[in-house]
């Protein structure tokens, strides 16, 4: 469930797929799914911090996309529309879970793929970053993911989160500063333990 091996997001291609999907063509939906599923999975994983739940949320996001597909306008980019739906799916799911009192936090299946987590330092480093990311307050985490992982501009993020561009920048920079501080602390602890 990493970014590796997936093509970069091509906004024009997404728009064409979306238009084909709106006109009732199954291949439009399939192309859309192939382009967006990995990205949505990463995004929802960053929010949910649970691989299984993120997978469920990806499927639910596509169902919501299907139900509200008429609300997409070709005059606008597809990605903010899709990510806004995904974020809403996550928030509603979280509220449902809280209401049902089903809090499921299972660190064992938290961030990353089990196979990739196994050996190398690179993967450990990635895990450390993911762990630090998970410790950020949700609004900072989300902004960092949207900007540094999904590559959205601050203006796009601001529009989608309903905040000012300056606030988006501030959240992102504070988020990065937080990650840096957490990683530095972790390294220092590691050295102290080793010595």
């Amino acid at each position: 469930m990493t970014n590796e091996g997936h093509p970069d997001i091509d906004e024009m291609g997404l728009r064409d797929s979306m238009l084909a999907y709106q006109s009732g063509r199954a291949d439009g939906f399939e192309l859309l799914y192939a382009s967006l599923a990995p990205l949505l999975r990463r995004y929802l994983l960053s929010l949910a911090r649970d691989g299984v739940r993120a997978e469920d949320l990806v499927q639910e996001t596509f169902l919501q996309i299907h139900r509200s597909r008429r609300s997409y306008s070709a005059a606008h980019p597809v990605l903010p529309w899709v990510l806004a739906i995904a974020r809403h799916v996550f928030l509603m799911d979280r509220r449902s879970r809280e209401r049902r009192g089903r809090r499921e936090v299972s660190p064992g299946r938290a961030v990353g793929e089990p196979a990739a987590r196994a050996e190398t330092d690179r993967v450990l480093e990635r895990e450390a970053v993911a762990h630090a990311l998970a410790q950020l307050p949700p609004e900072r985490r989300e902004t960092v993911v949207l900007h540094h992982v999904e590559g959205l501009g601050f203006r796009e993020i601001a529009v989608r989160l309903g905040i000012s561009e300056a606030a988006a920048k501030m959240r992102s920079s504070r988020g990065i500063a937080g990650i840096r501080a957490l990683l530095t602390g972790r390294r220092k602890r590691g050295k102290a333990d080793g010595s």
Partner: protein
Amino acid sequence: MEADDGRENVPQRLRETIEHDLRPVRPLAGPFRRAALFIPVAAVFLVGVPWVFGLRPDVPLMGPAVSWGLSGLQVLAGIFVLGLALKESVPGNALSPRVLIASAVAAIALVVVVTEVTFAVSPTIAPPPLRAPFLRFCAGFSTLVGTPLVLLAGFLAARALPLRPWVAGGLYGLAAGLIADAGWRLFCEVSSPGHVLVAHGAGVGSLALIGMLGAVVTERVRWGRRDRRE
């Protein structure tokens, strides 16, 4: 789950659900174009309220600009706010806090200016013993007659996917309130700012609240169905 070309395949269950309902859909028109569809409804409302309840007797003194003109302006403002609500209802088009605050302030300012101008041209006040009943009557009935407008606007918004239902609902409730008050002021002959801002303002505020609550309930019902499916 990858195809031969490395692309990720659609899971079987999701594919079946999508294919079961894969009919062509016509994309929604732009929010302000859809809001413009509301103009005939608002026009009927504008004429209908004074027709049903009676036209205020001081219309000749007010003149067409202050009576029908200012009500028309208020309707246009309502249509604009409705356009904002419909824009907010499309995912990825969330309005910034600045726009939201500006729309609320502009709507309040418009009602205040219309009230002051009307009072300056035709100052009428309610007799003291009738002030409280008039307040209750205007607040209650302007809310009542505006409620169908909220429902209709809510239907338009729900055709998209309002992700912040309290914001979208508050906006289309405010729009319905402005339109309802535009018609109501052509019936209510009391123009004193105290009466208009309290009683008619309460009507506008109640409709905004109804919109907000209605949108939140609609959203909860929509997601409740999903929960039951699970």
